């Protein structure tokens, strides 16, 4: 027996990163803008996405959603009411989505009528709603172009400081439920400052899925990002 040290220099999530790189290539080839939405449970990801899917469809865009939860297909059913194809991913206890789950659910995806398969090349936008969790999803690349971190006015302005790893990895930040900011005593300036401390210069949207406030900016941003793909 001899003791020896073997240099590996190998990424622990190499398998996920490789799969994600493959997905990114597929998304780009298909010309679809892919977004990964991450927040705590209860921030209002699903309501935000309901609004977004509905409006984009009304504008003639081809949209679809993949939605992750530990159990139930409640969110997929809610989102499917927009008319867009939506597929539920149940992780059964796993606290985040990974590239393999996305890859699997892009295969054999039938639309609402159960007839036509959903193809990436037939989409302008694909939204991935991650499992509600502000820690683990930050480590798992899903091949997305834009990672969106959401924060509601009910959660406290210091959320970005408490979860810097997630907020620092985001490309855009969305504040939700601004219609109830006042009764919640939400300090807007402090929230914006905290987000900027963790991710300087990030694009921030202040929205309400209930009243539609701020959604126009968000939809304009999506359209510009989609156009930039071509």
């Amino acid at each position, binding site marked *: 027996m001899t003791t020896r040290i073997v240099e590996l220099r190998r990424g622990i*999530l190499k398998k996920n990163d490789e799969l994600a790189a493959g997905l990114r290539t597929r998304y780009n080839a298909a010309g679809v803008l892919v977004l990964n939405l991450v927040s705590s449970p209860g921030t209002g990801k699903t309501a935000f996405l309901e609004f977004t899917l509905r409006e984009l469809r009304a504008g003639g865009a081809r949209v679809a959603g993949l939605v992750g939860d530990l159990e139930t297909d409640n969110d997929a059913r809610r989102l499917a009411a927009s008319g867009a194809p939506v597929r539920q991913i149940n992780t059964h206890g796993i606290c985040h989505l990974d590239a393999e789950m996305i890859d699997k659910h892009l295969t054999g995806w039938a639309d609402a009528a159960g007839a036509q398969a959903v193809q990436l090349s037939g989409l302008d936008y694909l939204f991935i709603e991650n499992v509600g969790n502000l820690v683990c999803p930050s480590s798992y690349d899903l091949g997305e172009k834009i990672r969106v971190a959401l924060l509601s006015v009910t959660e406290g302005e210091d959320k970005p400081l408490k979860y810097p790893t997630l907020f620092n990895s985001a490309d855009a930040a969305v504040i939700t439920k601004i219609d109830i900011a006042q009764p919640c005593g939400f300090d807007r300036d402090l929230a914006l400052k905290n987000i900027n401390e963790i991710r300087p210069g990030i694009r921030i949207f202040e929205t309400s899925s209930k009243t539609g406030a701020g959604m126009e900016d968000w939809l304009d941003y999506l359209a510009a990002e989609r156009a930039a793909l071509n």
Partner: protein
Amino acid sequence: MHELSIAASIVDAVTESAAAYPGARVREVRLRVGALASVIEDSLQFCWGITVEGTPLEGSKLVVKILPVVAHCTACGKDGELPSLKSFRCPYCGEPATDLRQGRELEIESIEIDAVEETV
């Protein structure tokens, strides 16, 4: 929270690499983990013992080196370690730091093995 998945990924990766040394026993696994990698060392160590059971890594030690976040400042041109994760600003000039050069690592640096002597 996801340290069990991380531990399982490490065991898979090391098992694959150690397969090049048939009969070898893994004594130690050394990791480089960035401060922004969302991995808690205590949780990872807690999961380690359970995960390596019944694998070629059973009984091995996990050594975790935590790497601070290093940002390159576009304003003053220096690379600096951030003293905390509370504020992403250049430690020299205070300008916002957006160009991170270190801190997201999550990798296996090396393994120490007891290899069976090669017979010629």
